[in-house]
């Protein structure tokens, strides 16, 4: 108990310096936590996707469609429970800044396949009955203040023209990992208008979603599906939803890596700052260490004193930083909800933050301790200031 008191007293002998160092660590741990959360948000789509669902798309690339006639052939494959389909609509609400995912889907089967989208029964029925109806996530509704029954117009970038939709349902996520900013409407409505205006593009879907009986069948079923359409006009590429989402992430991997690298650099920066503080502290107290040595305390005691003090400083700063991460993440998540629909702090991030603070405390004490322990008593006593 006494040593703890001594450590605190020592640490706060220079209130200004210690205060500044703690502030520095708080900022560093805060930045570290936020950067890790950004990286986690990048992978949110992968985390939220299921391994028992498959996505079939055109083998050439995502921008090429598949004929609607594939649906029945896919349904015949052994191990397939349900098949749904949809098209990426790519519409814009008012202007490009208001980005949110919007897709035309086969409503009934799609929502059945996604139990994580929780929609009240009455709203589901209302949506299925209305050809122009759409369902949107809770966050999206809140952002644009849409009310049930409102008409919302999207401008089509891929499918030209203005498109009107009526809000019929609001879904909420089953848990925190579900994206609550999606906009879903009927594929039939899209197809009907496309038929009238651009007949060449009609009866095409962007992707098929396949629900499996058992997740273990994923590999067999994807090979079987791709086999059926081999050498056809539209060859397919089937993979699990996880792999599909991962594909998007890996295309922007360079950015994720950069953010990750930077999150470690911030730890190095703060390491330099804390090491500097400790170096100065020990330089000033060389005389005291010499006195301690004269009294018979060994190198181990001096090590405990310096290391303990360094840890007291970094752990206080680390704790403050972690506490502050929560309100900061909430604020940033709100601001960047366009880019990152899901932005929450993982337990792992908190652990890593604590670990980083601990590590900084230990590493920062190494050099100063070596100096203090190695000093000769007579030399230490002779030195002034």
């Amino acid at each position, binding site marked *: 108990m006494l040593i703890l008191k001594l450590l605190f007293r020592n640490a706060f002998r220079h209130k200004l310096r210690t205060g500044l160092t703690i502030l520095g660590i708080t900022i560093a741990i805060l930045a570290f936590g936020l950067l890790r959360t950004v990286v986690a948000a990048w992978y949110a789509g992968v985390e939220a996707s299921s391994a028992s669902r498959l996505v079939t798309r055109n083998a050439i690339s995502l921008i090429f469609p598949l004929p609607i006639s594939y649906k029945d052939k896919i349904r015949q494959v052994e191990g397939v429970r349900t098949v749904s389909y949809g098209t990426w609509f790519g519409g814009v609400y008012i202007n490009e800044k208001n980005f949110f995912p919007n897709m035309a889907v086969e409503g009934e089967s799609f929502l059945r396949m996604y139990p994580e989208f929780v929609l009240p029964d009455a709203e589901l029925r209302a949506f299925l009955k209305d050809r122009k109806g759409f369902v949107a996530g809770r966050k999206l509704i809140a952002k644009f203040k849409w009310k049930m029954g409102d008409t919302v117009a999207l401008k089509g970038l891929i499918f030209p023209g203005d498109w009107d939709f009526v809000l019929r349902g609001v879904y909420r996520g089953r848990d925190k990992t579900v994206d609550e900013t999606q906009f879903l409407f009927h594929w039939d409505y899209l197809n009907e208008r496309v038929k009238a205006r651009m007949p060449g593009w009609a009866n095409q879907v962007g992707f098929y979603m396949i629900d499996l009986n058992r997740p273990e069948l994923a590999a067999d079923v994807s090979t079987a599906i791709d086999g059926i359409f081999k050498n056809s006009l539209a*060859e397919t590429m089937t993979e699990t939803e996880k792999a599909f989402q991962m594909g998007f992430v890996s295309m922007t991997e*360079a950015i994720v890596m950069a*953010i990750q690298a930077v999150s470690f650099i911030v730890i190095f920066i703060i390491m330099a700052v804390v090491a500097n503080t400790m170096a100065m502290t020990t330089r000033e107290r060389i005389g005291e260490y010499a006195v301690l040595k004269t009294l018979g305390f060994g190198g181990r005691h001096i090590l405990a004193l310096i290391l303990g003090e360094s840890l007291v400083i970094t752990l206080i700063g680390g704790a403050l930083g972690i506490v502050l991460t929560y309100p900061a993440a909430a604020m940033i998540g709100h601001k960047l909800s366009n880019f990152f629909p899901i932005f929450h702090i993982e337990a792992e991030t908190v652990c890593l933050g604590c670990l980083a603070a601990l590590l900084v405390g230990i590493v920062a004490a190494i050099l100063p301790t070596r100096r203090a322990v190695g000093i000769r008593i007579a030399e230490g006593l002779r030195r002034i200031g």
Partner: protein
Amino acid sequence: MAIPFSYSLRNLWTRRLTTVLTAGGMALVVFVFAAILMLAAGLQQTLVETGSPDNVVVIRKGSMTEVQSGLDRQQASVIETEAEIALGPEGERLAAKEVVVLISLPKRDRDKPANVVIRGIAAASVALRPQVRLMEGRLPRAGSAEIMAGQSIAGRFKGGGLGETLRFGMRDWRIVGIFDAGNTGFNSEIWGDVDQLMQAFRRPVYSSAIFRLRNPRAFEAVRARLEGDPRLTVEAKRETRYYRDQSEMMATFLRILGITLTIIFSLGAVIGAMITMYAAVSNRTGEIGTLRALGFQRGSILAAFLMESLLLGFIGGCLGLFFASFMQLFTVSTMNFQTFSELAFSFTLTADIVWKALGFSLLMGLLGGVLPAVRASRMEIVDALREV
């Protein structure tokens, strides 16, 4: 009278460990600051240089990119008859109807696929892009299943090298040429005959029409004529503008990321400098008293300590820039959010970035040093001398 410059310099030298640690922290901040600016500069340079100001890109109204756009043959032919189109050396019209699609190709190092732009070119396409130079092999012949690949495709994608074949659209395509398009986005593209590619992809429509203006100043008139034509639903942009628009979102993203990170990091480094300078002042209380007793003014002491902390910042800035300049050896490839396709670009160090980074490091030194220096200059002679 001013305190000699060497006083500040030697003070830093005496406390080497502290100096190295403080300057090292600052160097890391400057490194991050410069690296992110270099990245944004590289991206913008790549996309801006892709276009030339005399060229006009025509795409379907409302579609932001060539990939999303579609022009049917009739519309494309109407555009081709525009009177302002420049003529080539043999009297041919410098206009090309092109098709642009994305295909996903696996990379060489890991099997992960990325979206690559494949462009169907017409006879005039190469003449319209003077940046494109053939490095190896030859141009693909019209009417054959031959393609040529940009330099950064050839190295990074499976089957992208000279003499290799790629399979898509139910056909094998042989790579007969590798082209270098300098620092432009074309380097991340594959080019082949437009009619063959439209066949293979079963796409009955063109993506865009590109032409060179006879007189670059006529652009506004041409644009008004094309966009007002009742037979067309198109928009026309200068090629430079078209590519700048495509880099906007990415560049903004990088800039916001960079500024946020730098502000947070520099807070840490400023705190580091402040700690160092406060310690320097309190360690030298007696010294400061002596200097004042010798007749140096408060202003001189303030200047000496500020000089010391500016020096710290300067050392950090130089170190950071030194390491950041090595980043120019790296090429980054990532997906452009707006076009959804792979784009390779490198870190680019410009004079502007050097000045910004150095100025920034001096500012950090100044901010860190100003409070401690004020404290030093305010000391009373007697009190300072009395302290041990």
